[in-house]
């Protein structure tokens, strides 16, 4: 009888402890929790890495903080979930994170097959090759027979296979899980070439002892539009993240900076674009479930797109990336935010 009772109770407990399907109201979940869970990388200098004090800093990290500021009012109410190339999408889909800002390329299969929703591009990038100068290689077409360090589970892996096959070259793929592992193997000479997005290469090279002993080869072999992602099925949350990204780009175009946003938000000025972003005209925040000051909070937390870029990956940082394609459309680049109206 005792045995039967224990069995019955344990079976009932087992049946009861199952996880349900994820709820669709991510915005409400985040506001109730009081913290935004942001899926980031394990450590890419300039894009997302903890500094010496343990505080996360970087290009993608700033966008997370802007979103948290817009939704929760405090850019520090973010929990960062570091993931590898392999685990990032399952972490997003399983609910471990609310938004993914992890220099992730937008592709059709990721959008449609993996059930993700991409919300725009925060960095236009392309895949390149990093080689030591000592090899004397000047073009990617001279890399026949080389050993190439490549991160698994990425689009770079597929592009690499395609490029070498299209050019009738062979190579030895050395698979690595993280950027750090790749750096160690590359510097030890296990592989001749390190390939990832050009921004990742600049970031990696900046952390070497002798950055000038390595060059990025001129060939950019793919389009890598990097952008944030959320789970499919939650349109309101997708709108929130999308428009935080758009407003940061639009703010740079309109001339709003971290320094002057507070001034603009106090009273309406002559420029209707600035008024709409600063919340003095119209109530665009309510359309996405937030209040009038949503953009003001985001911009005063991290600045506009240009300021975010210059702070983490710009020409005055160790990465030294020029704006290039990532300049505003009025200044020779292709950043073109839809208007806030």
């Amino acid at each position, binding site marked *: 009888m005792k045995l039967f009772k224990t069995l019955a109770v344990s079976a009932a407990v087992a049946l009861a402890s199952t996880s349900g399907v994820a709820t669709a109201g991510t915005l409400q979940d985040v506001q109730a929790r009081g913290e935004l869970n942001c899926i980031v990388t394990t450590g890419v200098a300039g894009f997302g890495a903890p500094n010496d004090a343990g505080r996360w800093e970087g290009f993608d990290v700033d966008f997370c903080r802007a979103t948290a500021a817009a939704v929760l009012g405090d850019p520090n109410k973010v929990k960062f979930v570091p993931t590898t190339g392999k685990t990032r999408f399952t972490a997003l889909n399983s609910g471990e994170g609310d938004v993914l800002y992890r220099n992730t390329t937008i592709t059709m299969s990721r959008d449609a097959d993996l059930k993700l929703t991409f919300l725009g591009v925060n960095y236009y990038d392309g895949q390149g090759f990093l080689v030591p100068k000592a090899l004397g290689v000047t073009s990617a077409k001279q890399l026949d027979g080389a050993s190439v360090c490549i991160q*698994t589970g990425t689009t770079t892996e*597929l592009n690499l296979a395609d490029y070498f096959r299209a050019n009738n070259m062979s190579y030895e793929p050395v698979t690595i*899980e993280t950027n750090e592992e790749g750096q160690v193997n590359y510097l030890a000479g296990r592989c001749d070439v390190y390939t990832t997005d050009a921004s990742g290469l600049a970031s990696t090279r900046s952390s070497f002892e002798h950055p000038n002993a390595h060059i990025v080869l001129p060939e950019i072999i793919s389009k890598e539009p990097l952008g944030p992602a959320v789970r499919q099925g939650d349109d309101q949350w997708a709108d929130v993240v999308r428009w935080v990204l758009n407003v940061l780009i639009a703010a740079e175009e309109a001339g709003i900076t971290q320094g002057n946003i507070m001034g603009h938000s106090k009273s309406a000025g002559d420029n209707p674009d600035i008024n709409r972003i600063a919340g003095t005209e119209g109530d665009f925040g309510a359309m996405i479930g937030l209040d009038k000051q949503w953009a003001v909070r985001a911009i005063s937390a991290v600045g506009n797109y240009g300021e975010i870029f210059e702070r983490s990956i710009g020409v005055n940082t160790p990465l030294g990336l020029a704006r290039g394609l990532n300049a505003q459309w009025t200044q020779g680049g292709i950043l073109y935010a839809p208007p806030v109206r």
Partner: protein
Amino acid sequence: MATSDTNTGPSLLYRLVNDKELRSVAIQVITIALLFAFLFYIVNNAIVNLAAIGKDYDFKFLSEASNYDINQHLIAYNSRSSHLTAMWVGILNTLLVAISGIVLSTIVGFILGVLRLSPNWLINRTVYVYVEYVRNVPVLLHILLVHGIVVNTLPIPKNAINLADSTFFLTNRGFYTPKPLFDPAMWAVLIAFIVAIGFTWWFRRYAKKVQDETGKIYPVFWISLAAIFGLPVIVYFLAGSPMDWDYPVLKGFNFKGGLVLRPEFIALWLALSLYTAAFIAEIVRAGIQAISYGQTEAGKALGLRDNRIMQLVIIPQALRIIIPPLSSQYLNVTKNSSLAIAIGYMDIVATIGGISLNQTGREMECMTIVLGLYLAASLTISSFMNWYNKRMKLVER
């Protein structure tokens, strides 16, 4: 005359609670029913939730092109091959490291186990320190350490260490050896080898029979050795040396030609083998020490030398005690090989359970495949060990 009792006895419910046998049967039936209900619920839950987020459970993705390359593949493979081929490449790599790991760890483990019992104090203590260090550090750290040593201390191909006058090369990209190229006439040598093995097997039985009947001892070991090596070699030269070598040559970035053992394979194989060898050493020592000293004394009384006593009296009895825990260690080698992903060795977890899983997004299907394959490999190893154990068992009346 006794009349049959028309009363059917106590009610079913009463018997269910009080009759021991019926009660135990009922409980087992109910437990099994609950277990199946639970399993059904779990599987159904997974299917329903997957359908809710729009994912189905099918294996069609296995026929699509994989679009990635693998550096170590025992069968033909390129980036246009299917995910199914990538899976086979992964399985073969796992089996390769598991079997070579089992072989090396058994050899080293047995040697260490016997050495641990040596009366020489230095040997005894050295093995003791080795075993204690290796056993108490997690195997992942061993793998990372060996891989780090191989990759960081060995030179790059340009400065390769060459052995035997440029036939073998040791670099941090791998150990390069010449590859034998076989003519069709090599089949004769292979057949000669098989014939030699068959002859050895027959000769052993014949020699035992002769020894039982007449007491005459043939030098079985040496004759078998001569047959297995001698016969194929003779046939080889008679067939006109039908073998050529493909030497590795440095071309550009890497060596081309020849066979290569990648540092990932070497690191995983050595680390797994040395780790498991420490455990096997302790199992062997336990088995040998379990045999009472009276057996050794009896052997000495018969006039046998020490190594003959170990070989003919102690080890055969100790094997009965050694084999069951040994099969657990073999299963551990197979399962620990899944740590290959930490150093980039492309085994089953890295190909179908890693890259294919990530690129196609099919976690449930890929994990099912990986689990099924590990289960199949482990069951094969343990059933073989159980068969061997039965052969060695003490046959009592």
